[in-house]
């Protein structure tokens, strides 16, 4: 079956522009994660959804970042008034379930955002 898909794969934005990044998780996956990977760094956690509920947004760097998953499937990460420091690859991952047992996170290919 299809894996996690993300669109667009590449996005160039002028500073101050708003952007929206989309994540299509694997069908049936309950948990969805967003990570930010700056150049030369490891991914850093941004936010986590369990179905449509955003249970953890502790990693969002500022109030310019907003994520939603209204129907518990597709998720959108929105960045308002983009700044140059927002330039990074944004990774989405999904896993089948949640709770006390381990479930592998499957990653999408990422969206590379460049803010000029």
């Amino acid at each position, binding site marked *: 079956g299809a*894996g*996690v898909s993300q669109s667009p794969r590449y996005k160039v934005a002028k500073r101050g522009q708003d952007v929206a990044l989309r994540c299509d998780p694997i069908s049936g996956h309950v*948990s969805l*994660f967003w*990570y930010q990977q700056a150049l*030369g*760094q*490891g*991914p*850093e*956690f941004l936010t*986590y959804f369990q179905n449509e509920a955003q249970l*953890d947004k502790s*990693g969002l760097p500022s109030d310019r970042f907003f994520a939603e998953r209204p129907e518990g499937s597709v998720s959108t990460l929105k960045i308002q008034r983009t700044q140059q420091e927002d330039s990074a690859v944004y*990774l989405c*991952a999904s*896993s089948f*379930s*949640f*709770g*006390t*047992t*381990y*479930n*592998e*996170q499957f*990653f*999408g*290919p*990422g969206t590379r955002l460049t803010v000029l």
Partner: protein
Amino acid sequence: AQSVTQLDSQVPVFEEAPVELRCNYSSSVSVYLFWYVQYPNQGLQLLLKYLSGSTLVKGINGFEAEFNKSQTSFHLRKPSVHISDTAEYFCAVSESGTASKLTFGTGTRLQVTL
């Protein structure tokens, strides 16, 4: 909170030679440990994981890692590398017992040459 340290940013190695990529972690709670590989312009792929039980875990592509609780380490090894192993490798941890977020190290670039 957890943290991961990968001291080697780059590791050059000749093809068919053995390699070890080092990973140390810090955590106040029990953790799961992971190694991911990232090829250019691709997403992260799970190589192997330690959840519990045997401290020596084997993964895909001939890689293995050993969990050492006393040294808080989870080093990745391969006895004989191939050109196709050239990639970025990330060590990661998550709090055990939950479907929780991953905390990654800064990555090690493995460069395999002839």
